[in-house]
């Protein structure tokens, strides 16, 4: 690097020059924004090295990662050279498409393979991997000063997100309890809120809905007021993934749960209460009146593609799905906006259920300390800020990144309402499911019941009673109920 550029970046790191002045200055020196941001991160990495922590302790070691094809992965790979320079370590990785990714993870872990040291996972999956003894409790590393750099700042992680990755392994055990094990480190996460097409709502003369009744009406009005579209996109396939986004976020806003946990730790179905039935009735009506005609096949991809292509007026799904659909080659790029959504009119704020892409360490790794060096760097504040402000590492899981003025401005300029939506929702954002080993089976059955209700094969009340009965029976069979 040329001295002038280096001096300017170091001045920015010391805080004597603003980010805007630095970028402007680098631009005047003929440097592109992308190159400048990599260099800025290199300077941040140099600053890390000055903390007194021995980053070179595992120099010469190679760690191998198993990663999902995702923008978070791309952001990490783009910044990886800085980690290599900082530590003298090498990092190799296998990237697999999401459709087959978890099959690969399960095969690698269940066979006890030591090929991969760390891997990406969802927090729900750790409810299987943790008790099976396939992944390590990362508390042993996070709170060890000899292994974790002093700038790691674990407390900077958003509380609801951090706790959602920790479980004590007891069926029904509270996430993030004092005795919980940190099965994974949050990396990036998704809240479930509204992404809407402002022009379509304006055409129909409806305001952005703020509760479930308004949502049902607005979806119907948007469909009627715009030719060739449907009102609202929500997932509908026979999968646990149909329950966890908008549906569970709205459901839990009415203080409803999936399961009850008794004092003696026994679990029982909780989805056939009167409040739950009322919520289900509204949800089913919304899909019947204004959902996708082929709703029962809709997954993440169809919900996102349709709002991006202008085939639906709104989605109640992951905020980053709306984020992705507002750019690139989508017909509606630049036309989408965002709003927090509290389904319950009496609720003070949204309570979105969340999906967390996280990092876990394989129990079978033969170089765990070196692997932890990678994990703490990849989930650290420097990489978090780089990824969020220069790549699509959104939503960041650290408060410090959300407080960064440059990041907030970048988001607000291109994604109207996104920052405000996050600020309003984040305090109530966490995993709303009860952690237990039958999670995938029971939640998939819930989705199947929802399909029957929408198809009018079973009335809502009867369907929920039958579902609760089946859930209770399965919990009893498994010794959990």
């Amino acid at each position, binding site marked *: 690097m040329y001295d002038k550029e280096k001096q300017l970046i170091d001045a920015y790191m010391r805080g004597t020059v603003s980010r805007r002045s630095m970028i402007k200055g680098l631009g005047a020196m003929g440097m592109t924004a992308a190159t400048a941001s990599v260099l800025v991160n290199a300077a941040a990495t140099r600053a890390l090295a000055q903390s007194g922590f021995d980053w070179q302790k595992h120099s010469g070691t190679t760690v191998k990662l198993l990663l999902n*094809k*995702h923008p978070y992965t791309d952001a990490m790979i783009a910044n990886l050279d800085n980690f290599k320079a900082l530590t003298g370590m090498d990092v190799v990785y*296998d990237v*697999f498409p999401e459709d087959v990714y978890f099959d690969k993870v399960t095969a690698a872990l269940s066979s006890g393979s*030591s090929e991969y040291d760390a891997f990406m996972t969802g927090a729900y999956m750790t409810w299987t991997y943790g008790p099976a003894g396939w992944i390590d409790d990362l508390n042993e590393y996070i709170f060890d000063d000899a292994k974790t750099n002093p700038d790691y700042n674990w407390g900077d992680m958003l509380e609801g997100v951090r706790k959602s990755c920790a479980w004590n392994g007891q069926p029904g055990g509270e996430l993030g309890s004092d005795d919980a094990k940190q099965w994974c480190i949050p990396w990036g996460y998704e809240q479930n809120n509204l992404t809407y097409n402002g022009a379509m709502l304006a055409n129909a003369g409806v305001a952005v809905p703020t509760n479930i009744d308004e949502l049902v009406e607005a979806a119907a009005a948007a469909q009627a007021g715009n030719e060739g579209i449907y009102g609202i996109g929500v997932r509908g396939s026979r999968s646990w993934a149909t329950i966890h986004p908008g549906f569970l976020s709205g459901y839990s806003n009415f203080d409803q749960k999936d399961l009850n946990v008794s004092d003696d730790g026994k679990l029982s179905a909780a989805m056939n209460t009167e409040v739950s039935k009322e919520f289900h009735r509204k949800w089913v009506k919304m899909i019947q009146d204004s959902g996708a005609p082929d709703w029962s096949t809709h997954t993440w*991809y169809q919900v996102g593609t349709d709002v991006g292509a202008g085939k639906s007026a709104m989605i109640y799904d992951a905020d980053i799905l709306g984020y992705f659909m507002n750019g690139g080659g989508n017909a509606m790029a630049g036309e989408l906006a965002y709003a927090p959504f509290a389904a319950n009119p009496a609720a003070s704020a949204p309570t979105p259920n969340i999906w967390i892409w996280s990092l876990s360490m394989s129990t079978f790794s033969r170089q765990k300390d070196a692997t932890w060096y990678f994990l703490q760097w990849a989930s650290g504040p420097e990489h978090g800020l780089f990824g969020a402000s220069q790549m699509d590492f959104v939503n960041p899981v650290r408060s410090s990144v959300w407080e960064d003025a440059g990041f907030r401005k970048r988001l607000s300029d291109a994604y109207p309402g996104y920052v405000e939506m996050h600020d309003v929702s984040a305090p109530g954002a966490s995993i709303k499911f009860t952690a237990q080993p039958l999670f995938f089976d029971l939640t998939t059955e819930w989705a199947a019941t929802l399909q029957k209700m929408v198809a009018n094969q079973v009335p809502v009340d009867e369907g929920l009673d039958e579902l609760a009965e089946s859930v209770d029976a399965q919990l009893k069979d498994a010794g959990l109920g």
Partner: protein
Amino acid sequence: MDQTSTLEKVLRRVAISLVILFFMFPIFWIVLMSFQTNETILRVPPSVIFEPTLSNYVALVTGKLETQAGTLEINFMSNLWNSLFLSAGSVAVGLILGIPAAYAFGRIKFRGSEDIAFTLLSFRFAPPLLVLLPLTIYFQKIGLADTYFGLIWVYQLIVLPLILWIVRGYFEDIPADIEYAYRIAGHSWFSTFRTVALPLAMPGIAAAGLLAFIFAWNNFIFALVLASADKQPVTVGALAFVTASGIQYGQVAAGIVLSILPTLALALYAQRYLVEGLSLGAVKG
């Protein structure tokens, strides 16, 4: 003398055209999609009129995929090569092992022959995942995990039973008298196999080889579980276009077109060979 009326001929051709159109339409639509951008593919209503682009093919060949999330690296051509290598390699090994075995099962009666043949066939019945997890552990211990050699070995689970059972039927259909006549003329057993039986069974061998190649080509679970990303076939690689930031329909379509080509070329070639082999058959029914 041809008794078919003109009307009947026309109706027959119309009917054949309709059937061809029905079966070929999905392929035709995929080919059209492969020359479009995501935006034109997803427009409402869909249309066959568009400005064609080669960008999808360029992305696959150059390995650079432009998405909402920026430029992504893709390894489709490497996946295509892996599929070719794994399928061709495993069919070659399957033919070398399977043809003599099929001849033995078809011609020589020995104790337990049916049981052994059925055991080999039963490899096709086992759910792949049931076999793969224990295999992963063994492969890691003996150093075969994540190697082409190990994969071609495992692919025998698919191709060997297929080749063995199809070719065995062809050998059984060849009258033994032809071979006896050749043997009486003083030729060895191996010479008889090579000069008489093998050419006569060639249509069956071609059909079995083609079918085994297609089955091997379509497999994806073996490499997914047993190998790293750099050894994945096209069936796994094609899924890379389904990303969290959207489905790249144009590239998916271009990927399908490219991945169909080797099997299509082989099928066309083998079809000619099959007809030739049948017409040269020494035995009349």
